[in-house]
C-alpha cells in the first residue's frame, strides 16, 4: 500500500523534478561562465553552490543515487572554492563545465533516457579530477572526536514511518541489531516528535533517531539493518568523511525539527562549540520559525550561506508533501502552492486559435450591430469587443518568454567554440529581458545558433590576426534584442574581419550563382551569403562551412514572417539583423481604406495620422513624394500608385505616419477606419513575393485585408526620399493584378 503510494508520488513528481533539475543545470552553466569573468564574485560562487546543492538534494528525494553521488563531488569542490581554499582557473572551469554536462546526462538518464555505460569511465575520471582539484585526499571532517579504533564513522538518520508498529516492526530491535555492526557512541532520539499523551495514537510510530556508528562494514550492510522497514522509513546514511554541507542538508531535510542542532551534537556530528555559537546567534536573530532559524544559524556557523537554507526550504516543503503522501494521511495531496503551472503548449495554441475565431466573429457581430443602428446593441457589442481584447492580450501574454534564456545558452557555445578555434571572444548580451512569443523563441534558437557559430568561425579572427590589423586581441560578439514597432529585432554583431566582397563574388562566380564577371551591387553581394549552396570558408571546419546553413537560416526566419539583413564593413565587423513579429497570432491593427481595398498597419508602428488633408503633393510615377509635417520633411508613399490600385483619386486623403526602426514615413490613404483587432492569416503562396506585405486578415464582413510589413514599406519610402541615392533600385516584381479585391 505505502510502497504504491510512494511510487505514485515519485511517478507524479518526477517530471517536475526533471524540468527543475534541467533549469538548475542551465543555471549552473551560466553561473560558471559568469564566474570566469568575475572570479572574485562571492555571490556567484554562492549561487553556484546553491544550484549544485539543490540538484543533489532533490535528486536525493527521488532516490537518483547516481546523480547524487556524482553531484556530491562537484558540490564538495565548490564548497572548497567558497571557503577560499581553491581558486578558479580556466582548467578548473572547464572541468566543472564538463561535470555539469555529466550531471545533465545523468538527469536525462533518470528521466528515462538509455544509460550510456561508456560514460562511466569518463565520470570516474572526472570525479578523481574533482577530488584532486579540491585538494582532498580525505575530505575535511567536522568531528574531531574519534575513538581509539580505526573504524570509520558513519552517521545514520532514521525516521521510522507511522505504521512501523502496526507492521509488526520494532525499532528497538532494529537499533539493537545495528549496535551489533559496530560501536554507537551516542544514540539520540528526537523526543520532540513524540506527541503528548492526549494527542498520541499509541499504535503510530513517531520515532526518529540520529546516531554515529563506528563500523568497518559497507553502506549496504548498514542499510540492510533497516531493510524490513525500508518502505516507510526515511533513512539517511552519511558516509564517513562527510562535510558540514551534508549535515546542513540533513538539517534541511528534516522538517519542523527544532531540536536537530542538539541532536546532531549529541550524536557527535558537530561539536558543542559550533552549536553554542549557532545558538547565540539564534538568540539575536529575529522571530522566524525557530526550526528554520536554527538551520540558518547553523549553516552560517559551519560556513554555508543562509541562502542555502532558503533554497532548501522549497525542497523541504516538497519533502513534507512527500512525507504526507507516504504517510497516506493526506492521500496523494496535490501540490497547491506552486507559483507556476506547466501547461502543454498545444492546449495554449488551441485557446489562441479559438480566440482568433472569436475575434473575427466578434468583429462580424459589431458590424451587424452597427447596421441595426440600435444604440444599446452597439454598446453591448463594444463592451464585448473590449473584453475580448483583454482576453486576447492576457492569453498572448501567457506565451511570452524573455529571449535572455535563449541568448545565455550561447555563452557556452561561444566559450567552447572560441577555445576550439583558438580565438578569444567576449560575448555581450543586451536586452535579454525582451519578451517574445514562445513559439517564435523555439524556432529562432537554431538559426541563432548557426549565426553565432558563423560569426565565431568566419567573422572573428585569431588574436594574432587581430593584433596584426591593429585591433585588440579579444574579439567581441554582441547578441542584442529589442522591441521596435511591433516587432522584435535581434542583432548578432561581431567586430571581426567583416564580409570580404571579393571572396564572396569569386565564390559566387565559381558556383554559378552569379554570372561570371558580372558585379552586382554591394547589397546584393551581401545577400549572396544567404543563397543555397554558398560557403566561403577556405577551410571547412566541423562548426560551419558545410554550405548548409545561411540559406536555411534565412528560410527559417522567413517562415516566421521575419526578415534577415546583413550589414558589414570590411575589417570592422558584421551585423546580422533579424526582425521578427512579436507574435504569430493576433495583433492590434490600424485599418485603412484605399478605394475599395482595405489594409492594416500594425498599430504599434503607427505614430500619428494627419486626417483629411487636400491632395496637393506631387508624387513620382511610383507614388512617392514628400509632405511637410511640423516643419519637417516626411517621405510619403501612395498605396494607390505603388500597388496600382484601380480606383479614382479622392479629393482629400489622409496620411498615416509610421515608425520603422529609426525612420518615419507617411502612407497616403483614402480613409481611416480605426483600430482593429487583427487575426493574422498567412499570405497564400501566390502573394509570397509581394513586397511590403506580411499577411492577411479577415474582416467582420468577410472581406480580406492585407497587413503591411512596415519595414519593407519603409525601404520603399526611404528610397523615394533620396532619389539620387547610392543604392540602385532593385527590380521589383509586384503582381499587382492579383491584388485588387
Amino acid at each position: 500500500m505505502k510502497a504504491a503510494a510512494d511510487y505514485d508520488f515519485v511517478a507524479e513528481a518526477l517530471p517536475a523534478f526533471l524540468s527543475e533539475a534541467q533549469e538548475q543545470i542551465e543555471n549552473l552553466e551560466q553561473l560558471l561562465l559568469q564566474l570566469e569573468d568575475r572570479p572574485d564574485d562571492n555571490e556567484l560562487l554562492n549561487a553556484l553552490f546553491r544550484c549544485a546543492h539543490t540538484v543533489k538534494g532533490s535528486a536525493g528525494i527521488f532516490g537518483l543515487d547516481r546523480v547524487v553521488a556524482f553531484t556530491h563531488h562537484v558540490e564538495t569542490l565548490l564548497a572548497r572554492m567558497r571557503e577560499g581554499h581553491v581558486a578558479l582557473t580556466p582548467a578548473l572551469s572547464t572541468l566543472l563545465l564538463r561535470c555539469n554536462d555529466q550531471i545533465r546526462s545523468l538527469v536525462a538518464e533518470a528521466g528515462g533516457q538509455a544509460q550510456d555505460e561508456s560514460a562511466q569511465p569518463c565520470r570516474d575520471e572526472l570525479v578523481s579530477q574533482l577530488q584532486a582539484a579540491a585538494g582532498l585526499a580525505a575530505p575535511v571532517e567536522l568531528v574531531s572526536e574519534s575513538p581509539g579504533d580505526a573504524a570509520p564513522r558513519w552517521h545514520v538518520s532514521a525516521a521510522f514511518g507511522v505504521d512501523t508498529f502496526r507492521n509488526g516492526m520494532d525499532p528497538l530491535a532494529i537499533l539493537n541489531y545495528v549496535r551489533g555492526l559496530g560501536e554507537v557512541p551516542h544514540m539520540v532520539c528526537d523526543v520532540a516528535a513524540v506527541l503528548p499523551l492526549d494527542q498520541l495514537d499509541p499504535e503510530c510510530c513517531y520515532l526518529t533517531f540520529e546516531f554515529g556508528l563506528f563500523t568497518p562494514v559497507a553502506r549496504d550492510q548498514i542499510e540492510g539493518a533497516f531493510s524490513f522497514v525500508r518502505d516507510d522509513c526515511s533513512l539517511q546514511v552519511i558516509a564517513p568523511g562527510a562535510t558540514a554541507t551534508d549535515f546542513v542538508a540533513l538539517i534541511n531535510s528534516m522538517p519542523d525539527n527544532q531540536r536537530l542542532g542538539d541532536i546532531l551534537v549529541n550524536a557527535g556530528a558537530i561539536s558543542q562549540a559550533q552549536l553554542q555559537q549557532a545558538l547565540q546567534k539564534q538568540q539575536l536573530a529575529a522571530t522566524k520559525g525557530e526550526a528554520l532559524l536554527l538551520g540558518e544559524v547553523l549553516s552560517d556557523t559551519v560556513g554555508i550561506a543562509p541562502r542555502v537554507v532558503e533554497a532548501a526550504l522549497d525542497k523541504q516543503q516538497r519533502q513534507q508533501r512527500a512525507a504526507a503522501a507516504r504517510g497516506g494521511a493526506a492521500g496523494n495531496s496535490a501540490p497547491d502552492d506552486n507559483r507556476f503551472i506547466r501547461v502543454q503548449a498545444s492546449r495554449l495554441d488551441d485557446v489562441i486559435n479559438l480566440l482568433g475565431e472569436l475575434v473575427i466573429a466578434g468583429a462580424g457581430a459589431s458590424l451587424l450591430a452597427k447596421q441595426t443602428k440600435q444604440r444599446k446593441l452597439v454598446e453591448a457589442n463594444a463592451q464585448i469587443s473590449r473584453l475580448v481584447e483583454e482576453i486576447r492580450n492576457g492569453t498572448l501574454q501567457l506565451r511570452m518568454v524573455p529571449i535572455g534564456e535563449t541568448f545565455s545558452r550561447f555563452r557556452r557555445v561561444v566559450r567552447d567554440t572560441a577555445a576550439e578555434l583558438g580565438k578569444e571572444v567576449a560575448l555581450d548580451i543586451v536586452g535579454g529581458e525582451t519578451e517574445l512569443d514562445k513559439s517564435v523563441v523555439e524556432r529562432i534558437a537554431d538559426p541563432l545558433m548557426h549565426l553565432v557559430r558563423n560569426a565565431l568561425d568566419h567573422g572573428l579572427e585569431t588574436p594574432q590576426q587581430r593584433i596584426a590589423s591593429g585591433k585588440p586581441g579579444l574579439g567581441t560578439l554582441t547578441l542584442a534584442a529589442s522591441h521596435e514597432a511591433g516587432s522584435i529585432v535581434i542583432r548578432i554583431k561581431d567586430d571581426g574581419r567583416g564580409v570580404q566582397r571579393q571572396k564572396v563574388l569569386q565564390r559566387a562566380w565559381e558556383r554559378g550563382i552569379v554570372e561570371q564577371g558580372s558585379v552586382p551591387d554591394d547589397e546584393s553581394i551581401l545577400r549572396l551569403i544567404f543563397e543555397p549552396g554558398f560557403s566561403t570558408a577556405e577551410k571547412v571546419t566541423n562548426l560551419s562551412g558545410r554550405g548548409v546553413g545561411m540559406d536555411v537560416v534565412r528560410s527559417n526566419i522567413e517562415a516566421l514572417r521575419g526578415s534577415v539583413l546583413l550589414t558589414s564593413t570590411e575589417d570592422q565587423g558584421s551585423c546580422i539583423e533579424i526582425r521578427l513579429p512579436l507574435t504569430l497570432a493576433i495583433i492590434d491593427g490600424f485599418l485603412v481604406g484605399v478605394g475599395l481595398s482595405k489594409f492594416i498597419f500594425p498599430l504599434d508602428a503607427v505614430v500619428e495620422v494627419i486626417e483629411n488633408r487636400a491632395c496637393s503633393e506631387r508624387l513620382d510615377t511610383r507614388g512617392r513624394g514628400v509632405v511637410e509635417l511640423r516643419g519637417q520633411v516626411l517621405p510619403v508613399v501612395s498605396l494607390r500608385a505603388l500597388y496600382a490600385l484601380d480606383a479614382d483619386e479622392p479629393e482629400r486623403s489622409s496620411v498615416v505616419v509610421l515608425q520603422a526602426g529609426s525612420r518615419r514615413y507617411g502612407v497616403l490613404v483614402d480613409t481611416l477606419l480605426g483600430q482593429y483587432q487583427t487575426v493574422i492569416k498567412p499570405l497564400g503562396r501566390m502573394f509570397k513575393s509581394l513586397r511590403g506585405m506580411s499577411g492577411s486578415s479577415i474582416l467582420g464582413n468577410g472581406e480580406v485585408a492585407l497587413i503591411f510589413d512596415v519595414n519593407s514599406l519603409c525601404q520603399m519610402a526611404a528610397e523615394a526620399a533620396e532619389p539620387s541615392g547610392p543604392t540602385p533600385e532593385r527590380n521589383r516584381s509586384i503582381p499587382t493584378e492579383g491584388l485588387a479585391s
Partner: protein
Amino acid sequence: MSTLQLAPELTIYTVAELHPQWLAWLGETATPGTESAALDISAVNQVDAAGLQLLLSLKHMAMASGLQLHLLGSSNVLETGLAALGLGGVMGGVMGGMMGRAQVGEPVAAGASA
C-alpha cells in the same frame, strides 16, 4: 504523591489498552498545585519501542501540565530499552530535553507509594 503502577508488559500489544488508563490517571493527577508524581516501574519486564514511546508521550504530557514525573523502583528491561533508544537521560528524570535547560531531578524514592 500519586504513583502510577506500570504494567509488566509495555509493548505494541498493550499500548492501546494502557493509553486510556494512563490518560485517565494523568487527568486525575495533574491538578493545579500538584508538582510531581511517580511511575513505579518495578513490575515492567517486557518493552518495545511502542511501549517506550507511550512512556515518553506520558512524560511530555505531564511536563506540559507542569507535573514532574519520577521513576520509582527499577526494571532492568525498561532501563536497557530506554538506553537503547537514547532515552535514558530523558526518562531518568531530566525533563528539559538535552540542552541542559532543565534541572536534573533526583528520582525521589522517599514518601508515598501506592
